[in-house]
């Protein structure tokens, strides 16, 4: 899809709506004609949440959906910026740089795809699932979250996926456990031509391993702290077998096989 990806620009955007859709997760809809018209699945925007605030950097957010002139973003409230974003009211003006990065790729002749989303990893999957459905690809989707209250975009996924299953850490919905249990099953049962994974890095690493084992190509969307978002500052590097890459322009989507995953002794897991 990369060839179709439009060149980035700064676009002033107007907040259309901004409300909570799950525990500590909100959906903000932005009026952003230019970006909405050119963004591809898996790309992101670099959002300037506030001017004259005590934090200066933009914040990168995947585009969950683009409908008409509007962008839809799902964001989790984790720190200063997202706390300020949560207070945005309809009519507020901000600006984005976008569309940015290389998104999901749909290999020629793909007929079956498996989508694995952990937590906010569901955010970049909205446009992807829509595109896959358009292309007549049969989609199986496995979503994981800490609890039922944190599952995202269920209606969208249920309506567009042939199979859509969930796992929660506390068992409050679907299978009790990590989404990686479901991905293992589905990888085996659905025999997908390609797997798309996004979520906490340890989860992506595990899914990448499962796909490597099954010999199925896997794409992952990686998160890094980003300053410029356009490839200039080298703050977002990802270690790949082909050297250091920039998540903002060479990614955020990478072939899992290219990524040099770190040891995996992180505390968290999904």
């Amino acid at each position, binding site marked *: 899809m990369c060839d179709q990806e439009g*060149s*980035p*620009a*700064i676009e002033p955007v107007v907040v259309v709506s901004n409300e909570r859709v799950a525990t500590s997760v909100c959906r903000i809809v932005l009026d952003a004609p230019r970006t909405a018209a050119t963004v591809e699945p898996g790309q992101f925007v670099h959002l*300037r949440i506030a001017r004259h605030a*005590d*934090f*200066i*950097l*933009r914040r990168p957010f995947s585009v969950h959906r683009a409908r008409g002139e509007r962008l839809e973003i799902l964001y989790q409230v984790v720190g*200063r910026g997202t706390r300020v974003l949560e207070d945005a009211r309809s009519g507020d003006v901000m600006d984005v*740089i976008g569309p940015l990065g290389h998104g999901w790729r749909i290999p020629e002749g793909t007929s079956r795809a498996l989508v694995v989303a952990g937590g906010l990893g569901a955010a970049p999957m909205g446009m992807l699932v829509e595109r896959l459905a358009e292309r007549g690809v049969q989609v199986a989707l496995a979503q994981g979250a800490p609890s039922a209250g944190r599952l995202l975009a269920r209606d969208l996924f249920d309506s567009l996926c042939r199979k859509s299953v969930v796992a929660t850490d506390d068992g409050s919905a679907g299978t009790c456990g990590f989404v990686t249990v479901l991905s293992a099953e589905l990888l085996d049962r659905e025999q997908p031509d390609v797997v798309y994974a996004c979520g906490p890095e340890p989860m992506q690493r595990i899914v990448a391993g499962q796909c490597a084992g099954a010999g199925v190509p896997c794409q992952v969307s990686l998160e*890094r*702290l980003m*300053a*410029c*978002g*356009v*490839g*200039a*500052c*080298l*703050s*977002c*590097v990802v270690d790949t077998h082909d050297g*250091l890459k920039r998540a903002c*322009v060479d990614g955020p989507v990478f072939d899992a096989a290219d990524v040099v995953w770190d040891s995996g002794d992180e505390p968290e897991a999904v």
Partner: protein
Amino acid sequence: MSSVDMRVRLGSLELRNPVLTASGTFGSGREYADFFDLARLGAVVTKGVSLESWSGNPGPRIVETPSGMLNSIGLQNPGVEAFCAKDLRWLADRDVPVIVNVVGHRADEYAAVAERLEQESGVHALEVNISCPNVDAGGMAFGTTCPAAAEVVRSVRAVSTKTLIVKLSPNVTDVTEVARAVEAEGADAVSLINTLLGMVIDTRTFKPVLARGVGGLSGPAVRPVAVRMVWQVSQAVSVPVIGMGGITCAEDATEFMLAGASCVAVGTANFMDPTTAIGVVSGLERFSEEHGVERITDLVGAAWKTK
């Protein structure tokens, strides 16, 4: 068209306006070409370039701070050969002067890079970076003592006929001493400030946020320190000063010029708004017109000259 003469000189180099990009914040310029025509800049200053390729520091490499940020990129770069083949070739067609930021672990490495760039007509000036806080060997180590700073500049001067800018560290007791030392070795200009050494600790992990521990502080937070040092250095040396540190708009840039800077560079603000630098160009022009300033150079040091 504007009536203000925006031209400035750096040694033998004439720039169409005094607004540069700060090294390491603007890539090779290519990354920002989508946002405006680079030819509208006074010059593009590239990221640090070393003799061989450097892989930089492990991540996280940045963290935000109040009105600023810390970075510990660590001068990741492909080495001077790859730089010439790719970045320089691309810049060649852009009708904008190119200033290459030069780094090394030892004085002779700096010289080797300068020697290689001597052949490149597309390189208009060198900015010798003796002030990077993010590498163990070299970098800031050279910028914090006069003899070390002098040695690096001497070895580069010996092999380069290009306009030589020396980038100074703010992490010193008396920045004017180092400035005088490098001027004495033939520097055509000095640029300041590089980043202030800082640290942020994550209260959840009890560890520094940056993988390397310390990083360089930049952004609006450091502007008062930068303006003060430009004020001091511009009165201590006779070569032009390139001022930077937290510039986000024309008014900020004006502060630096009044303090004694002949040129200004926009760094961290590029991340906030990629068009900051050209906004500074037009803003400086407007400010000069409003104040009946015919030559932008008339602003330089006005804060202390008219004293």
